[in-house]
């Protein structure tokens, strides 16, 4: 099988050995969960339960009242009583409204109390019904971004889609949950992929995985052969390189096409979904199960129990019992939600697993060396490492001199924030951090320069 890839990128240490090949372990039912009511892009949700309410596992607890196209509801992940609705720390290091549910021990072992939707045949229902099901199940991209899944699957008619890619590249170091999902749930992922292909009306699908997960290929091929849905699905190996799993890099590696600047994968005729998301989609149809639990990797040098776990959404990391998660608190230096390249460092363990939490990496001081920034020696390594052919050093120079438009010309808004430039910089300059700030400054400046919506009408009158 040919191995495809993109140009540029970096080769960070992979460090997946600790949790690789370990079965996904379902954690004991937590005593309480803390569920942020906003776990998606788009208009904010409102809580539709009150303190004291009894909620059942799978019951909707928050949704967008205005019903904007991007809003996605949130569901109770355990059966129990709503104890509090209050602002708590979230995994992206912001505070947000969370619904805190305390378990009903009697119901914990009894799945008959679940409030799932009716199963739905994803191949005989209408496409609108299928899209509504995915949205009602609260499914967002589980690879990290949290983009609503149904939005990706409903491109406007002028954007024909010819390929669906199941993203199992998992280029982020340390994390192994996508690989474990492919190993254990291959048929479910293939079923989810077939449902998605049916919704967007394409015949061709690709399951993309990095070369270092070659072991999953045989199982996937068997799952495809026995799927019987009649879709052309193949497994494609990709070079192990970061950020191979970025949507743009994935599309370019597989199709040779590039997503136009400012565009979405649909502009290149592609729909990309993480393999975990596809599993959740398949279950939303076959079991009527909303997105109330997910697999994630707990790993890192300060984690004595690196493994893949299946946890209800809202499980607070600090509540995990020692047999599930045991930390070496003396060496723990950084708690990262996600992997080391794009994950978010958080200040404490009192933070819940969310829909987009693909892992939590507990890093030691030796793993996450805090280095002082040196002067830029203009070695141009950041140009070589950039997966988007930008010139990070020049963008940084432009930002330092306050020339936002020059930075935009080089491609500030095209930066996918993969962190490759910061990683590779021999002077440890925090390039991507500056680009994040620069993007916000540029967007604010452009928004300020926009005429007020009412102004042109007045001018005409």
């Amino acid at each position: 099988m040919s191995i495809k890839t993109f140009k540029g990128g970096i080769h960070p240490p992979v460090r997946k050995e600790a949790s690789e090949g370990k079965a996904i372990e379902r954690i004991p039912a937590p005593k309480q969960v803390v569920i942020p009511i906003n776990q998606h892009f788009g208009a904010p949700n409102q809580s539709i339960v009150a303190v004291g309410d009894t909620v059942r596992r799978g019951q909707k607890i928050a949704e967008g009242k205005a019903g904007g196209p991007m809003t996605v509801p949130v569901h109770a992940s355990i059966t129990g009583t709503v104890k509090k609705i209050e602002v708590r720390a979230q995994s992206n290091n912001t505070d947000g409204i969370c619904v805190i549910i305390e378990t009903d021990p009697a119901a914990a072992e009894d799945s008959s109390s679940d409030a799932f939707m009716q199963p739905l045949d994803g191949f005989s229902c209408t496409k609108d019904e299928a899209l509504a099901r995915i949205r009602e199940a609260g499914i967002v991209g589980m690879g990290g971004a949290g983009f609503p899944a149904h939005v990706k699957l409903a491109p406007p008619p002028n954007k024909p889609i010819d390929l669906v890619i199941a993203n199992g590249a998992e280029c982020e170091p340390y994390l192994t949950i996508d690989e474990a999902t492919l190993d254990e749930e291959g048929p479910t992922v293939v079923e989810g992929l077939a449902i998605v292909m049916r919704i967007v009306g394409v015949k061709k699908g690709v399951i993309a995985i990095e070369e270092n997960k070659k072991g999953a290929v045989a199982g996937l091929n068997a799952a495809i052969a026995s799927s019987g849905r009649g879709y052309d699905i193949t497994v494609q190996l990709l070079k192990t390189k970061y950020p191979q799993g970025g949507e743009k890099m994935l599309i370019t590696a597989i199709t040779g096409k590039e997503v136009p600047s400012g565009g979405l994968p649909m502009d290149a005729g592609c729909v990309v979904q993480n393999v975990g998301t596809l599993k959740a989609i398949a279950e939303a149809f076959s079991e009527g199960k909303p997105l109330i639990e997910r697999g994630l990797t707990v790993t890192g040098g300060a984690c004595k129990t690196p493994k893949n776990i299946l946890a209800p959404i809202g499980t607070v990391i600090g509540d995990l019992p020692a047999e599930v998660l045991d930390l070496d608190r003396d060496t723990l230096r950084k708690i990262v939600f996600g992997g080391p390249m794009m994950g978010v460092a958080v200040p404490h363990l009192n933070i819940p697993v969310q829909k987009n939490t693909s892992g939590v990496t507990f890093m030691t001081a030796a793993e996450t060396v805090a280095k002082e920034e040196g002067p830029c020696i203009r070695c141009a390594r950041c140009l070589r490492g950039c997966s988007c052919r930008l010139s990070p050093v020049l963008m940084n120079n432009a930002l330092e001199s306050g020339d936002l438009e020059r930075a935009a010309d080089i491609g500030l808004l095209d930066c996918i924030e993969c962190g490759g430039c910061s990683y590779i910089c021999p002077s440890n300059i925090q390039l991507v951090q500056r680009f994040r700030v620069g993007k916000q400054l540029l967007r604010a400046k452009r928004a300020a320069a926009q005429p007020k919506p009412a102004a042109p009408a007045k001018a005409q009158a």
Partner: protein
Amino acid sequence: MANTERRVLLSSSPHFSSPETAKRLMANVLIALAPAAAYGIALFGLPALLTIAVSVAAALASDAAFRLAIGQKPRVADLSAALTGVLLALVLPPSTPLWMTALGAVFAVVVAKEFFGGLGANVFNPALIGRAFLIMSFPAAITTWHKTVGFAGALTDATTTATPLNIIKLGGTMGDVAASVGSSDYASTLWTLFTGNRAGCIGESSILLILAGGAFLLITRTIDWRAPLAMIATTFLASWGFGMDPVFGILSGGVVFGAVFMATDYVSAPVTPTGKLLFGAGAGLVTALIRKWGGYPEGVTYGILMMNAIAPFLNRIVQKKYGWVAPKKEAAK
């Protein structure tokens, strides 16, 4: 203290980084220079060794002294000043008086680098500025050349000679060059020039060893191939076009040394791929122009320094970013 050690850190991603450091990259260049430097010492003896030692010592001392004087932490350990010292020494004649060498190194580090803001901020290649300063200040001393005498030999009046480029500049023929390097025919003259047993700067003579150093830098991905290749190719083509012997042009002077070690200087060269190509090509062209019509027999120093001056403009030519789309033309109204 235990408390501080145990604190959990917060920072923006990424949360780990490549072990590559600026110091390591500088060390790579020093390693790559070692064969050419050792060969220079073997050809010209103690004066060459002393020139290198004095140049490095003066560069390090002036770097530390200047930074202390302006209240900054000395950066001697980053090897940047040491590298400037070695590079300067290797582009000087072995007979350069040691006080001149020291003065050149001080000028290179203090004026060409620290005055502009230190490491990473200089516009011009410090070593070449040091050399240019010495050529203009002491033209006689910096253009006095000696025959190779071996490590034990002595550089005396009796052993002065002209460099191959000088011979041609003054109207000599390839036969005169052959005589000066002690070979009989054209092919063996070129071979001698390639291996390096000839009069010239300490580190510039052996093309073979310089290319070996260049190969090491390419393999370790310390340098990019574009600027050196463009510079050598352009010098070759331009020399040919101007009616000079192109092979001789490449093998005789400092083109290869300049291309491999000076045109690849991170700070003073452009960072973009196209910029690097144009930078090398421009340096090669100016070198050939100076050799043909200029007052100096050699033009590498000024070729590279002139391109240093326009490097910021070459940096305007950025790569086409991922997903680049041609800007739509405004519809005619």
